């Protein structure tokens, strides 16, 4: 039993890595995660493509089902996520980014429910990339809105000797942001894999997938985008 478990877990950590050599600079790609990310993007693209056709109707007609569903989705993202920005103007400007982030992470988390597919977010590189995106965006917006002088002075708040602590706090944000998503998704994947491979292969994995794939995946996607909203807001306001 334990040999089987060890083999399963070995397979889980197995990666098909492609190394691309560009002028002596070695770039490594993990094929599994790359293809799974493309699948997630493809699902979102196809959804957008087909739902867009449903929206091509004159505005005075009564909304069809796809339009009603999209209205509900947009109202949910607006009410739950971007309403946390302290200024409505910033919320309106950030709405496309936050909505895209939420949908992408949600589809990525839900991918592992389908047999044969894996969540790209169970790889730390993907989540670190997403967290760096939020980090860079937050600081670029802070510089753009507050100006360089006020932005740099913000690191000396409340006293100049707090500078190292402020710097560590800023660097710790993307780390905890990315590893929260990665840790939760990866732990769910490992649990489902172990139970399926070793303990009960029937019925129980379906319930576990519902809890760790669908429910926890939704909560984690929501938490990831709420934290992105909070970080951007803190950087712009603070």
């Amino acid at each position, binding site marked *: 039993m334990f040999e089987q478990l060890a083999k399963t877990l070995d397979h889980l950590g197995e990666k098909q890595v492609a190394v691309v050599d560009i002028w002596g600079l070695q770039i490594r790609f993990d094929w599994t995660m790359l293809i799974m990310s493309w699948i997630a993007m493809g699902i979102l693209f196809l959804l957008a493509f087909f739902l867009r056709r449903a929206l091509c109707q004159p505005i005075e007609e009564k909304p069809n089902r796809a339009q009603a569903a999209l209205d509900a989705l947009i109202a949910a993202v607006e009410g*739950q996520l971007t309403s*946390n920005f302290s200024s409505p103007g910033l919320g309106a400007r950030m709405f496309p980014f936050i909505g895209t982030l939420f949908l992408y992470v949600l589809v990525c988390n839900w991918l592992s429910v389908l047999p044969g597919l894996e969540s790209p977010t169970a790889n730390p590189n993907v989540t670190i990339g997403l967290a760096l995106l939020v980090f860079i965006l937050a600081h670029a917006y802070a510089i753009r809105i507050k100006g360089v002088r006020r932005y740099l002075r913000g690191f000396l708040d409340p006293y100049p000797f707090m500078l190292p602590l402020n710097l560590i706090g800023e660097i710790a944000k993307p780390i905890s942001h990315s590893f*929260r998503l990665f840790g939760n998704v990866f732990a769910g994947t490992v649990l489902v894999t172990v139970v399926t491979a070793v303990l009960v292969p029937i019925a129980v994995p379906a319930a576990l997938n519902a809890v760790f794939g669908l429910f926890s995946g939704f*909560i984690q996607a929501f*938490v990831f985008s*709420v934290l992105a909203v*909070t970080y951007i807001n803190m950087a712009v306001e603070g």
Partner: protein
Amino acid sequence: MLQDAQTAVGGISGADLIQAAKFLGAGLCMGIGAIGPAIGEGYAVGHALDGIARQPELQGSLFRTMLIGCAVTETTGIYSLLIAIVLIFVA
């Protein structure tokens, strides 16, 4: 006595000991590191439930605030996960 012990551990090299210490450290790190976030999240969710029971009309905003609080509380647990991963795979 010492001779016996030395023959018993004769097959164990220093690298094995380091490997064992890594896994032990990672397990202890996750186990002890999970206590704090668990207690903190329990408090947060319990008080949020109190608030929802008192004012059910505020459920949406209370739930959202609770999720953010839980996510922030989880951070120390995430750090111990980071240390455990570093211990197992990198160190």
